[in-house]
């Protein structure tokens, strides 16, 4: 019972983090149709920014998280302005290569300042809660609660505010959005900012139970891609459902099959799904 519960908790934790990263990826894809390969680098920069604010400036965990969200949001907006905007009419292969360029650049810069060592990030939530024999580390609980709060906030923002509706409108129909006077540039920047911020929050939430290092974004971004392919590129509920499927598949697969190969589960899942459904499991979500 306890073991099963631990795996459920584990799956929820992983699913929450993957969900936040995949949401940013799917939002950007929905608006601009760019598979942003640099998204994992934004996630990594988010973790390092929080690490810097906490260890070097001695700020509190929450403040560091907020600041890091801001930094990465600005960084993501810069990427949109300087790189993806000039390439909006280029052949689709170009923005993929440009995204790889951003990824390589950000990783090299971080490596230049911090080296490629693995670092541990402290968190004020290192304790363990016990309920009737069930063990719940505080940080994991924080991740699950935090991720679901953020997802709810994103949902409310997209559905209940004018600004959020412009993103939805743009994802549904570009021409339609132009017709009612929506500024495409502003929506694109806003989307990138939200996606960067979610990545930074996810990284800061996950880093205390993981490690901080320049290559930390690689696996996460690839899993996020698997998720949005699974959930339909551009679909928001699809990203959350896909993230939970993958989180549970990894946690149970790693436990019952082999922990060495648990990272391969995600990719095998993708290979199998794309072999049978070349456009993803729930094709055509948001548009």
């Amino acid at each position, binding site marked *: 019972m306890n073991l099963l519960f631990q795996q459920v908790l584990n799956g929820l934790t992983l699913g929450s983090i993957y969900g936040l990263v995949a949401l940013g990826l799917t939002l950007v894809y929905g608006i601009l149709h760019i598979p942003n390969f640099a998204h994992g680098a934004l996630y990594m920069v988010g973790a390092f920014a929080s690490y810097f604010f906490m260890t070097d400036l001695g700020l509190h965990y929450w403040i560091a998280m907020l600041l890091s969200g801001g930094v990465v949001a600005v960084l993501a907006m810069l990427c949109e302005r300087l*790189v993806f905007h000039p390439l909006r009419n280029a052949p689709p292969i170009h923005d*993929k290569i440009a995204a790889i360029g951003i990824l390589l*650049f950000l990783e090299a810069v971080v490596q230049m300042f911090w080296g490629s060592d693995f670092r541990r990030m402290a968190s004020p939530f290192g304790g363990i809660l016990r309920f009737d024999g069930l063990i719940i580390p505080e940080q994991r609980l924080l991740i699950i609660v935090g991720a679901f709060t953020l997802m709810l906030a994103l949902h409310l923002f997209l559905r209940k505010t004018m600004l959020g509706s412009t993103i939805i409108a743009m994802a549904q129909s570009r021409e339609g959005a132009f017709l009612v006077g929506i500024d495409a540039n502003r929506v694109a920047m806003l989307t990138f900012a939200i996606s960067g911020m979610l990545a930074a929050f996810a990284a800061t939430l996950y880093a205390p139970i993981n490690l901080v290092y320049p290559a930390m974004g690689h696996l996460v971004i690839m899993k996020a891609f698997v998720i949005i392919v699974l959930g339909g590129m551009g679909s928001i509920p699809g990203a959350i459902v896909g993230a939970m499927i993958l989180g549970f598949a990894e946690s149970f697969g790693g436990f019952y099959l082999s922990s060495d190969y648990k990272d*391969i589960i995600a990719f095998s899942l993708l290979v199998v799904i*794309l072999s049978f459904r070349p456009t993803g499991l729930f094709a055509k979500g948001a548009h």
Partner: protein
Amino acid sequence: MRRFASLFTHPAARWVLLALALGFPFVASSEYQVYVMATAFIWAIAVYGLNIITGYCGQLNLAHGGFFAVGAYALAILTSDHGWNFWPAFLAAGLVSAALGAAVGVVSLRLKEHYFAIFTLCVGFIIYLLIDKWEALTHGAIGIRGIAAPDGFGLVDFSQTRPFYYLALGFLVLAIWFAGRLASSLLGRTFMAIRNGDALAQSLGIDLMRNKVLAFVLSTTYAGVAGALYASMIRFIGPEEANPNHTFDMITYLLIGGFGTLFGPLAGTVGVVWITQSLQFLEDYRMVIFGPLIVVLVIFMPRGVVGTFLGWKLRKDAEAARADARPGVDGMSGTEVKPHA
């Protein structure tokens, strides 16, 4: 200026280039330089493979480094663990990467654009993870030692740097020759038609799937052969050979040289390898410069050095031809002629 430029496109230029490559070990100041050049040649062979699927056929393959590692590991395992002779193992390494390429290609090429790039990115990562974790076959993180050097049949000792350099050069020339034949053949044009649009190619009666898989298999064979050569030069390989960063390096070389050009892969690879070598302090941080360079090139010069040069020359030639055809106006308004190409 135009006359100077046409020296580069003259048919004799490639023989000059070959002569330069043949003479390089005699003018090189140290054996190390020869070694670096041989490495550059091996990478260039792999980049020629990438050029077939990405440059000519227009499908961004992000698993290329993985196939390079598959070739390297096939040779390493066969010669080191199973005691095969070099040449049969070399042949087998090429065949293994071709077969794996066919298997991956049949599944992945049903996907379009973004899906294909994402899928191959994941394939590259699976190869990396498998090499790292499958210890019974690949020795995991320890890597493989004692890989055989190419067998010279008692005539040449390929474990020496200079003879190996000529071997690598030989394979590179073969790779370029084949790529050149391919590009001017019907098959090459078929690939380019696919690059210009799936629907367009299909309407010409091109079997998309068969041609894409063929391009993919050709490219993975190139990668596997290059990987096998690499393993036999380094003589020791580890899971890092499969690091997806190698794929990104090769894309950088190809982008700087020029997608879909015959000499772009060579110019890009040799150029970038030497720039990185001469800026030794950059070794670890080279991407601080090359990352933004990739972005700038994609935005302002997406055809790379060779592609841009060829485009410029074509335009100049057209201008000159038009000026010749109208000698009357030539003197007064040579600049009025607007380039079209």
